[in-house]
């Protein structure tokens, strides 16, 4: 029996392996490798005066100590600025080991290699680094005030300043009958995958080749970066992402200092070297995100329709800008959500601070933008005394206005044009799911019982599946197994399941026969990476294209064997057969495995299948070459998908919260999601993505913040004090799907990876504001924060609901 596997909610094929401890993560590799550890800066801002390693030299088991002075050639140069932009006028990147100056606590200064990590840490402890302390710049206000500078040669601490405008927003606002201004803030957070970073390198001196395992979201790009840094031909460098225990963006940042230094040391020492990041290192030396101040000025008519929107964002980019200014660009473009803003002006300042560098974390600037827009929508509704969903609906882009051009440039450098979406339909679904219209009755009932409840809503549009491209390779082996490879990596998303579903559907084979490899440059060399909700869109379509090519060839070869027209053939359950022929009728079908044999004419027979494929194995037309001109042996094809621009998914979330009048505890009573990512490959996996995203969103809304003191010390660099929510803190997520296929790709799909996280802070802020009767403008919000807000608002004589 063959049904189309597309759209089937099948269970994740990788789970039995991962859940029974059979996963192979970075630290499971290379038990005999030397261990690296790093001396990291204890200061947020300082000049390095002297590094004294004398005491460490006696440590038994020490192999090497490196400082910046040891880094020759390009390894000693600053790390690459991965995504340059003309507005990034003052981009700065760190050295692999700090050269003269450190700019955040945790910056690597000295590398130690030893027989094991214990010994390496012993040696680290004995290395004395003398610093000249410099006053640090901590927090966006301090960076903006620019009384102190992070980098001497960066005036105002501004790495980038960008204005995008469509129409004359300021004039439109000035002329509007209603004008509101909002000051908003989102604090710092981070991806914090359960597996930190890690890299293992092995140099083969005879083969002159380097193999690197790294816990990355972009193995092909790591390969290119390492080849460039180490002066090796890319062909001599293999980079493999083993099982990766979560990424959420932090592992798209590459190459990390350690990712360059470990292979460099492996070559220099002629030994395997491994570095496995520990949790404290991850907090202070991997990257963070969120962290913005925003000012919104909006003009609107008496119905609540936007006439002009003017947004200024101060974005904390941390100490360096290796990943460019992707995050604030996304904030200021994706802020628009499903709405027509009237005239729009967005300006951002990306600012240096003496804190950990900021690069994309799941959502990648969208949660901040969504927060700004949705807080604005609520403010308009409050100002006009109109229901919050009504104001939103009045501003929606309508389905018949698609494709909709915002007149701006998106993060991929291409026009911000929405391809499809039905926002009114999504709103109807979310209102129904959460029971929006029945909430007033519930509130009255709760109030009578002395309880305080509120409802909130948030809408977003997410550009997914950014280019430039991905590729897929599909091959039918002579035993009927289908081998699939794509270059982008997997961090637990379920690619072994969804990509196999695509191949099973396109090729007509049982999914059990399909094996998928990702993120291994030995299997597929051309790729971009897994980020920006792009894997299903990009590799899914590329693999579909490759599978269709394999199918065409299989039908052609089978047609020759069956003496049938390829157009009369189909592939069902791994067998090519004449359409409409009775099962088992002689001469009407041929297993795909046999077709694979026939597609590869052999000289040597090594088993029975091969024997039939040899030059003497059967009747042949001796007038023709065994492989026709322009053809190639085997049943394998490569396909690429490169989209004209991003495809835009959307969704709406709603939550009902309860706030304790005495303790200010905030409980999420219900959390509802309606999500539209076009055609679903696997609804179960999409729901899993949504659940995980909401969990991280709840973390960002109620729990997680990076707390720096004035000296630039991260005060909560552990899971004891950085409050990632447990399962006990994450609400049950109720979901419904809307499917508006994308016209931009063969499968009609849109990305789903980040969707769950985007509007959560906006939704919870909306609901808490509704419960409390004052506007929440800063997230996350803790019970203590809510308590202090209550005191402030009651002393200001504000209403209490």
């Amino acid at each position, binding site marked *: 029996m063959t049904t189309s596997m597309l759209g089937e909610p099948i269970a994740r094929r990788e789970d039995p392996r991962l859940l029974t401890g059979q996963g192979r993560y970075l630290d499971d590799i290379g038990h005999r490798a030397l261990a690296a550890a790093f001396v990291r800066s204890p200061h947020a801002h300082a000049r390095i005066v002297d590094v004294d390693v004398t005491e460490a030299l006696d440590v038994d088991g020490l192999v090497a100590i490196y400082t910046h002075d040891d880094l020759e050639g390009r390894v000693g140069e600053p790390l690459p600025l991965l995504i340059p932009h003309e507005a990034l006028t003052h981009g700065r990147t760190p050295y692999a080991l700090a050269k003269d100056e450190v700019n955040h606590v945790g910056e690597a200064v000295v590398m130690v290699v030893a027989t094991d*990590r*214990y010994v390496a*840490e*012993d040696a680290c*402890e004995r290395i004395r680094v003398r610093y000249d302390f410099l006053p640090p710049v901590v927090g966006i206000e301090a960076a903006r005030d620019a009384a102190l500078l992070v980098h001497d040669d960066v005036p105002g601490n501004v790495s980038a300043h960008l204005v995008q405008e469509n129409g004359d927003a300021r004039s439109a606002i000035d002329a509007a009958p209603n004008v509101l201004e909002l000051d908003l803030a989102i604090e710092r957070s981070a991806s914090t995958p359960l597996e930190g970073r890690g890299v293992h390198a092995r140099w083969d001196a005879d083969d002159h080749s380097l193999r690197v395992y790294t816990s990355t979201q972009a193995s092909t790009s790591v390969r290119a970066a390492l080849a460039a840094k180490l002066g090796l031909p890319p062909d001599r460098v293999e980079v493999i992402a083993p099982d990766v225990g979560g990424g959420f963006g932090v592992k798209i940042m590459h190459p990390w200092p350690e990712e360059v230094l470990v292979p460099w040391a492996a070559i220099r020492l002629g030994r395997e070297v491994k570095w496995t990041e*520990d*949790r*404290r290192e991850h907090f202070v030396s991997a990257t963070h995100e969120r962290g913005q101040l925003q000012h919104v000025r909006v003009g609107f008519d008496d119905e609540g329709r936007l006439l002009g929107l003017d947004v200024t964002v101060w974005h904390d980019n941390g100490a360096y800008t290796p990943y460019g200014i992707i995050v604030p660009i996304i904030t200021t473009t994706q802020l628009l959500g499903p709405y027509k803003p009237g005239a729009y002006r967005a300006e951002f300042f990306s600012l240096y601070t003496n804190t950990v560098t900021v690069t994309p974390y799941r959502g990648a600037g969208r949660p901040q933008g969504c927060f700004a827009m949705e807080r604005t929508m609520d403010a308009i509704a409050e100002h006009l005394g109109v229901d919050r969903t009504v104001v939103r609906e009045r501003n929606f882009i309508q389905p018949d206005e698609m494709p909709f051009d915002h007149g701006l440039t998106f993060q991929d450098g291409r026009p911000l044009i929405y391809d499809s979406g039905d926002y009114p339909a999504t709103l109807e679904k979310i209102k129904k799911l959460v029971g929006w219209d029945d909430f007033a009755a519930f509130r009255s009932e709760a109030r009578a019982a002395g309880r305080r409840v509120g409802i909130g809503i948030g809408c977003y549009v997410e550009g997914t599946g950014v280019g430039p491209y991905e590729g897929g390779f599909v091959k039918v082996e002579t035993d009927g197994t289908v081998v699939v490879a794509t270059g982008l990596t997997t961090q637990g998303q379920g690619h072994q399941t969804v990509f196999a579903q695509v191949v099973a559907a396109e090729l007509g084979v049982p999914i059990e026969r399909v094996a998928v490899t990702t993120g291994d440059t030995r299997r597929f060399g051309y790729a971009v990476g897994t980020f920006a909700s792009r894997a299903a869109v990009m590799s899914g379509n590329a693999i579909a294209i490759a599978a269709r090519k394999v199918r065409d060839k299989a039908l052609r070869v089978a047609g020759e064997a069956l003496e049938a027209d390829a157009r009369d053939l189909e592939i069902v359950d791994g067998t090519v057969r004449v359409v409409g022929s009775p099962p088992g009728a002689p001469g009407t079908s041929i297993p795909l495995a046999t077709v694979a044999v026939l597609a590869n004419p052999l000289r040597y027979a090594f088993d029975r299948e091969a024997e039939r494929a040899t030059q003497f194995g059967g009747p042949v037309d001796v007038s023709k070459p065994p492989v026709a001109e322009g053809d190639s042996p085997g049943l394998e094809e490569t396909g690429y998908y490169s989209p004209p621009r991003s495809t835009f998914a959307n969704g709406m979330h709603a939550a009902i919260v309860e706030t304790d009048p*005495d*303790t*200010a*505890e905030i409980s999420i009573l219900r959390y509802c999601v309606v999500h539209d990512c076009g055609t679903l490959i696997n609804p179960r996996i999409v729901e899993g993505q949504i659940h995980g995203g909401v969990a991280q969103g709840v973390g960002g809304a109620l*729990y997680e913040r990076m*707390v720096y003191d004035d000296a630039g010390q991260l*005060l*909560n660099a552990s899971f*004891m*004090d950085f*409050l990632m*929510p*447990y399962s*006990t*803190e994450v609400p049950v997520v109720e979901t419904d799907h809307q499917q508006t296929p994308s016209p931009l790709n063969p499968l009609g799909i849109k990305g789903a990876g980040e969707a769950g996280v985007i509007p959560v802070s906006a939704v919870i802020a909306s609901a808490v504001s509704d419960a409390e009767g004052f506007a929440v403008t800063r997230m996350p919000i*803790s*019970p*203590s924060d809510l*308590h*202090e807000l209550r*005191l402030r608002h009651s002393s200001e004589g504000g209403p209490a609901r």
Partner: protein
Amino acid sequence: MKPSGFAYHRPSTVAEAVDVLAEVSPAGKVLAGGQSLVPMLNMRLAAPAHLVDVNRLTELAYVRVDDDGGRRTVVVGALARHTDVEHDAAAHAALPLLREALRTVAHPTIRNRGTTVGSIAHADPSGEMGAVLALLGGTVELRSARGTRTVAAAEFTTGPMETSAAPDELVTSVAFPVPEGRTGTAWTELARRNGDYAVCGVGVLVRLGDDHRVVAARAVYVSMGPVPTVLDLTEPVAGQDPRADDDGWAAAGRLAAWRLDPDDDIHATAGYRRQLAAVLTERALRTAARRATEVAV
């Protein structure tokens, strides 16, 4: 996050253990469940030269209820895991506060390994079991090669992570006195996440007279100061009959909030902690008083 080198000792009797501690003093550190010590070692916040693992001292793996002429005590040996205390039927029957408080000590996996005595000896100001011991006026038994001594809870904990135990002493047991008469207890706390250290935790004890009127009310707090703080809250509720009167509980909560002096930290302001102290004290007192009325004497 790998510890510095240390010499590892694994004695199999208490006598051996105290000999080792005497020998290596003051460089020895006792390892029981390791739920606090091992992370501290890994982060190199502690680097003792000698680690004395007491996990083979099975003679200390007990929870028992002693009865000395009607004065009952729950005695917990140094190798009793939190979970052993939590699930001990006799201990629960005698002193239900133990189980109630233990359920707020981290998560079950940690309670399966961590020991109640170890937690008290660690003297973290957010540790629930040290607070319960202080509330009940319990004692700590210490042994060394020099002999055995018993210290009152209030004298044992001298500061955050500081106790009056000498470097060569092993805490062998703690004793929780069972309150007599018409007494009710309650534990309540608010943590940022399920199982986290409390932002504010309150344990209370309310004693009623034969006429069901309050004769004593006492509370202890965690995360509200450097050591568990015991407050006498009798005055606002004295003479109140929990079955009829309702005025004093909130006043007692306000009194507690006024007398406590918590700090700001990254999770809460001092003002919020005081607010919690007031609210949680009131709630806990009501619960304990109701329970006291249900005691059959």
